[in-house]
């Protein structure tokens, strides 16, 4: 019995023990600075808030040149529209018609936009621009406040439109 216990303890140690001792411990501060990931349940969304009304000015100055005043697309792809087109010969994939999670908008704007100056917008501005994009798609009202609690609860129209990978879906070799 005692032997078994020792073996069990050894097994646990083997799973969790550091073997090479190469690399150093990460500090809480550097994790906090580097980790800007956010999950669809809202984990990682920062404090802050914004509405479409508040975000309109930033959108027009920083986003509309590429994405169009109404999100219809210009130099870059559209952000709005395309409702009901996914099963047609000319699907228009936009935030409103295609994206399954509203948190992805915040995450992407925060990490990658504006294209020539990512990280320019602070948390309030990012929530506000996210609200503009949702409002342009008719998903929220212009005064609906987006924050760490409300954004994950926004129901995206195509939320149920994704399935798992079920390939192979073409025939096997004829022997």
């Amino acid at each position: 019995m005692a032997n078994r216990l020792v073996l069990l303890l050894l097994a646990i140690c083997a799973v969790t023990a550091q073997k090479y001792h190469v690399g150093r411990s990460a500090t809480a501060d550097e994790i906090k600075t580097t980790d800007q990931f956010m999950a669809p349940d809202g984990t990682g969304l920062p404090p802050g808030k914004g509405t479409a009304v508040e975000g309109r000015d930033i959108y027009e100055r920083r986003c509309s040149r590429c994405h169009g005043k109404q999100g219809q697309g210009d130099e870059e792809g559209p952000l709005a529209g395309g409702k009901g087109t996914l099963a047609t010969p000319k699907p228009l994939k936009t935030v409103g018609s295609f994206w399954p999670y509203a948190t992805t908008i915040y995450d992407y704007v925060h990490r990658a936009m504006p294209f020539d100056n990512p990280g320019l917008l602070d948390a309030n501005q990012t929530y506000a621009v996210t609200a503009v994009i949702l409002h342009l798609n008719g998903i929220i009202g212009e005064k609906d406040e987006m924050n760490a609690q409300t954004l994950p609860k926004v129901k995206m129209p195509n939320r149920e439109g994704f399935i798992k990978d079920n390939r192979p879906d073409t025939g096997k070799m004829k022997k």
Partner: protein
Amino acid sequence: MPKNPRRSFLQLSGIAALAGCGSQPGTKTEEEKLPSALGKPIRAYGERSQFETAKRAVPDLKRPQIGSTRTPLAETEGIITPSSLHFERHHAGVPELDPAKHTLLLHGLVDRPLVFTVADLKRLPSASHIYFVECAGNSGGEWKAPGGPNAAASFGLASCSEWTGVPLKVLLEEAGLKKEGKWLVAEGADACKMSRSLPIEKALDDCLVAYSQNGEAIRPEQGYPLRLVVPGYEGNVNVKWLRQIKIVDQPNQTKDETSKYTDLLADGTSRQFTFLMDAKSVITYPSGGQKLPGPGFQEIRGLAWSGRGIIDRVDVSTDGGKTWQKAALQEPRLPKAFTRFRLPWQWDGKETEIVARATDSSGYAQPTREELTTARGMNSNYHYNGVKVWKIAADGSVKNG
């Protein structure tokens, strides 16, 4: 017997030139000068011959930081893509990262969050493997119409390299992976901080945190100094300029795994997390844009690969799919790597169509375009792996079939 037979030969050929062409004694043609002329001195870093021209076609883009270049597959031999010709796909340009300053942060659902320098990673147990990397969007244009004019345009978002690095499993064990950790999310150090989620099973299987490509440091366009190599999975998850890996309990649903790299089907639903690259092949000779020198012997050459494993066979038809012959496969055949195939062929000089079809070790065979579009419709954009037909005209010119 002359002391220097080479000199003697040159003298003789000089005489022959004199007799034949009436040139002055002591003058030699350029050709005659070559063997004895002193060459260029030794140099610290090699360049290819000035006569070689294979290159990645660079499209004219409004924003050259977002775009791709393609490997000129028809101008490569064997299975290794020269690093300088590996395809590129960037979302916010190529960052210039100092390897003395760059670090990899590994954190989230682990017992010990760790920071590794590039030097740390090079100290750890290493592994080298030959793997292809293929963009999920490779051959995407073929969904609407099989119109790609040449092998590079239709298939060039695929390349194959020997990658060396630390197995990701080693790092996860070092950090102490918690059992709640079901996914990881990896992030690059490009301006858009490109990020993708990946199931932990794959991370523990065969992923590498690579620092070397084809024997030297990974090229900047391929992720210098660190790249996550995810064998057999779509190129986009092979995160370049890798700066952090966070262990999480759910995928993060990043832009590039929701809005992009999801496969829209005919009924309007989309497949998500379609990581695997299915079996595929392309004939590189004769292929679109080339011209056969004339009837007679040709060696049909091509490349086949599969994210599911090893290429087991490649069948080639030289009569538009009526009859098929087994191509010879160059050994060693490696899992999730390019395999070179070859078939000797006597071309009778008549118009015909040639096509190849790969089968992998799982038994999966490459579908026709019709089989693919029947299963998925025309709007999937990604993961096109239908067979490619090249049409040979009576004058030997090769075009998209």
